């Protein structure tokens, strides 16, 4: 799958900008916010030789809706933000969700409530997974280090344009700002970006490039259709509907699509889970600490393993249910007050009698030592 690769020394945010270029993105819209500002700065720095465009917008709403406009026109584009900016940006992605507009958002989580801190946190999980008013019909990759930032930014564009669900890369300030070696490469096949809002009569219905392919229910349309699209010599799209039944039907069709492609999209990492008596559930940067903790505990003969969902949407529910068979203890840890923990518990509801221990440190770092201590505590 990889083209020619090269190892370079990069900051996390720089790796994201490089990956977006490699993914074929042509425009970045952004509003400065720590800890993501360098993505926009680096994008601008890399622009001349890559012929890309950018706009520093008046706010994150303009950035998000700028992405919508460019993607409607068929140009891969994206934005990056954090914390309060993520709140504002999500409005646009709810429109992307409603109209199946492929689009990418990069998020480096900031700490907690309101403006708060800027470095270490996993408190934008619920916001990123479910957005504003919407149903969470989106893909969220939770990255766990520098290489992940490159790999999953690249993948986010492929996923968004292949499946037409808005796609997010969810990092944190720590990952965005850290520096180290990253293997960079070009994907061998880039997915084409087709205009959505331009009547393009080149493509016949049934052709994979036609709009009807992406909106399979289009053929059922009559005047004042039951859906949000009207086709003739032009494309007419709406997100405001008159009848509850209309929106119900649209959501149902999107849900079916989402469920159908979930097995293709879902990703997770397992470490030492085979004979594990204790399973740690962690995602993102906390999973990086959990890996080290598992290594140390295993060296001391403690049968512990790690399960890390990489996609938080869609969530690896089936795999989680499988991995807990034959275990004795479960523990969920995150730098938040149970946003991820709630997802694990929902996946396990009615599946097991084993109590689920929690180790929540909202906006605080979680070290391998802390996790070693926590595991030893519940082993007793």
């Amino acid at each position, binding site marked *: 799958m990889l083209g020619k690769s090269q190892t370079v020394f990069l900051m996390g945010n720089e790796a994201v900008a490089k990956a977006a270029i490699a993914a074929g993105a042509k425009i970045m819209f952004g509003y400065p916010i720590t800890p993501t500002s360098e993505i926009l700065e680096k994008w601008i720095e890399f622009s001349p030789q890559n012929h890309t465009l950018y706009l520093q917008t008046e706010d994150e709403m*303009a950035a998000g809706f700028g*992405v919508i406009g460019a993607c409607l026109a068929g140009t891969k584009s994206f934005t990056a933000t954090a914390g309060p900016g993520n709140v504002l940006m999500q409005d646009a992605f709810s429109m992307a969700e409603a109209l199946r507009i492929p689009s990418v958002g990069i998020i480096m989580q900031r700490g907690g409530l309101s403006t708060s801190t800027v470095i270490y946190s996993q408190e934008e999980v619920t916001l990123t997974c479910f957005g504003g008013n919407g149903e969470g019909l989106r893909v969220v990759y939770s990255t766990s280090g520098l290489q992940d930032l490159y790999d999953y930014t690249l993948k986010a564009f492929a996923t968004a344009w292949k499946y037409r669900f808005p796609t997010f890369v969810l990092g944190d300030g720590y990952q965005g700002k850290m520096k180290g070696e990253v293997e960079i490469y070009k994907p061998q096949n880039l997915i084409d970006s087709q205009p959505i809002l331009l009547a393009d009569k080149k493509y016949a219905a049934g052709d994979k490039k036609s709009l009807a392919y992406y909106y399979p229910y289009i053929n059922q349309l009559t005047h004042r259709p039951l859906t949000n699209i009207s086709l003739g010599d032009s494309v007419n799209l*709406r997100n405001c509907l008159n009848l509850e039944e209309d929106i119900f039907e649209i959501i149902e069709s999107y849900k079916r699509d989402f469920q159908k492609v979930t097995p293709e999209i879902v990703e997770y990492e397992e470490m030492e889970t085979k004979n594990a008596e204790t399973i740690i559930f962690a995602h993102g940067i906390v999973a990086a600490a959990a890996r080290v903790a598992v290594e140390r505990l295993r060296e001391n003969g403690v049968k512990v393993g790690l399960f890390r969902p990489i996609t938080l949407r869609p969530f690896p529910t089936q795999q989680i249910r499988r991995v807990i068979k034959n275990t004795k203890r479960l523990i969920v840890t995150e730098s938040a007050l149970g946003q991820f923990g709630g997802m694990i518990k929902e996946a396990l509801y009615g599946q097991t009698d084993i109590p689920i221990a929690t180790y929540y440190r909202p906006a605080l770092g979680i070290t391998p030592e802390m996790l070693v201590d926590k595991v030893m505590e519940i082993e007793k």
Partner: protein
Amino acid sequence: MGNKFQNFPKSWKTKSKPHLFCPGCGHPIVLKMLGQAIDEMEIAKKTVFLIDIGCSLLAWDFFNLDTSQTHHGRTIPVAVGFKMARPDSLVIAYVGDGGGYAIGLQHTLSVALRNNPITTILVNNTNYGMTGGQMAPTTLLEEKTSTTPLGRQIDIHGQTIKGPEILAGVVADSAYVARGSVRQPLVLKNYLKRALQTQLEKQTFSFVEALSFCPTNWKTAAKETLEQIEKLEEQFVCKEF
């Protein structure tokens, strides 16, 4: 086959007519002038029509033009993004006075300051039509709305906004700013044409405010509707700025 729509602009979509605006509404007059302007300039193929949430949302399948609704107040940034991706297209953001002067004012101003090559058409009916006639930034002093039942008061509700006057003070020389009225549709059409020409020929910013009727929320019959817009024209100067 006789065409019962022969008086309609070619760019109108006949199968979505009759339209959904209230009887006597000004929006369809603005849209008719826009349709004629597009026909006369023969630019339907390159035109992309982006509409706000407000009564403008009713125009989602009004034209045989590539059209999309956006969110309330966010049509202008969608237009900017589209135009960046497709500089050869003609991009119109069609918004109400709530969308353009309240919830999306930062976008209205920012595109003017940046001289972004899009055309904003803002329909000023001095209230929030879609949500039932609440006060808008354009509501006149003393004007009664459902949220100013005793009339708009300067010390409570603030001054009425004059959009083109503000924008004229910040735009580049190459930009185009005008205010027309649905009471003078042909003058309005000329302004719309010049705005579209500005985008096409100079690739710079253009803005037209259209004073418009909202008989439903003004609670006016035809005669009073005309009297009301004449009153508005005294306060909102119709001209090229």
